């Protein structure tokens, strides 16, 4: 995965402010009052055991799920209105790639570039395919991609429109060590350029070096927030939260 240009970002309100976010499914509260602020130029790693609500929280942040209660503001805009222009500023990597199996990698990225009205789309698509190491495979239908290739394409799709707020759900999943390293470098570069990044992971060793803060989500609430720490310190805090049931 190679180099792709990053747009500079100016001063602005916090990209993400969540206050008392609740999301319930059939009466079960998956999110039970999440309070969280993410500033521009920071990378927040969101940790939590299985079922803690990480994916649900990211889908709420990505405007795919409406909160049952609470307030979410993205770039100082109330997310309930979710205007299309607001979605242009978000980049979301989900567990699924959002890409059509019968189209090639290049065709999928071109399709999304058109939806996002990316300027100089062809050059941007080519650059991202090169970054993802998919120059050759990018011409083949993605039905034949491996798990890792699909993940790299999905990352390229999330980065395509150079979003101001990146929401990455398990971004290291399926990637080989070289691709992990390239992604880490990319995320650090984006953060330094002023982007805000929220990523969920179970992989402390990969998240700790690039995170400026770490939040631990447990039973639908933010149980702990740590400033930049090593993986061992984060792991200790994580174990304390989960074992303590805080």
């Amino acid at each position: 995965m190679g180099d792709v240009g990053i747009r500079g970002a100016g001063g602005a309100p916090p990209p993400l402010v969540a206050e008392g976010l609740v999301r319930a499914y059939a009466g079960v509260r998956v999110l039970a009052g999440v309070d969280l602020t993410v500033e521009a130029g920071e990378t927040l790693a969101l940790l939590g055991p299985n079922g803690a609500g990480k994916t649900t929280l990211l889908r709420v942040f990505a405007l795919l799920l409406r909160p049952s209660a609470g307030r979410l503001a993205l770039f100082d805009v109330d997310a309930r209105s979710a205007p299309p222009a607001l979605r242009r500023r978000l980049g979301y990597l989900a567990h699924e790639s959002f890409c059509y199996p019968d189209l090639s990698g290049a065709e999928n990225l071109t399709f999304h570039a058109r939806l996002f009205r990316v300027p100089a789309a062809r050059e941007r698509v080519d650059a991202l395919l090169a970054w993802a190491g998919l120059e050759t495979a990018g011409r083949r239908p993605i039905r034949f991609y491996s798990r890792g290739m699909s993940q790299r394409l999905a990352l390229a799709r999330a980065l395509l429109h150079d979003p101001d707020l990146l929401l990455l759900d398990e971004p290291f999943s399926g990637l080989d060590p070289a691709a992990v390293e390239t992604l880490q470098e990319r995320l650090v570069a984006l953060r330094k350029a002023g982007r805000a990044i929220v990523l969920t992971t179970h992989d402390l060793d990969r998240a700790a070096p690039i995170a400026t803060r770490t939040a631990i989500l447990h039973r639908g609430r933010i149980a702990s927030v740590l400033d930049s720490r090593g993986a061992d310190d984060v792991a200790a805090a994580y174990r304390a939260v989960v074992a303590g049931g805080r």
Partner: protein
Amino acid sequence: MRGALVIFRKDLSIEWRTREGVSSVLVLGLLLLVVLTVAHDAPPEAAPALAPSVLWATFLFTGLLGVQRGFLLERENDCLAGLLVSPIDPAAIYVGKLSANVALLAVMQLFVVPLVGLFLHLDLMPVLPALLIVLALGNFGFAALATLFAAISVRVRAREVMLPLLLLPLLVPLLIGTVSATRSVLAGGLALATDAVTVLVAFDVIFAVAGWLLFAYVVRD
């Protein structure tokens, strides 16, 4: 509406590459036509009365298959969510999918209508312009309603059963209108089908507007 055009082109591109939608609706359409005409075994003089119901029953069931497949494209890899996180109005997604469905159904009609004439020994050429208007109105009305309900049913577990269960009762006015209009057209021309065509136009407008307005609520959790 640029987003709608992008989605429409994407759907056509996938269909052109796989030809799964077209081939499945054409094969099903042919089979239904054969079954219905053989089952009726109508004498030539009964053909004008029989042709409208054979034509639109075939259209209805093949159309269900085609529209359902159009939304299954969006289910794989959660592509519908990919559309919803993009900066386009959900109504544009509806228009894009509706346009693709109309195009697919039009191809199916181009195939099925001549076969109805062939199987039932009907000369459709003299009434073709009027028949095309009825076909277009029936196609659009069906697609307008089916696109909305396909978006609902694609998210549920028993989607293959759910779409016909939800859709067919609501399609009864359209079916009555199209059969009546087609029968009038075959009997003498569009002038005889004024009432039925009015019903079809009203149906098309109501459900296209309903789809436009409701689609955002249907596809978002």
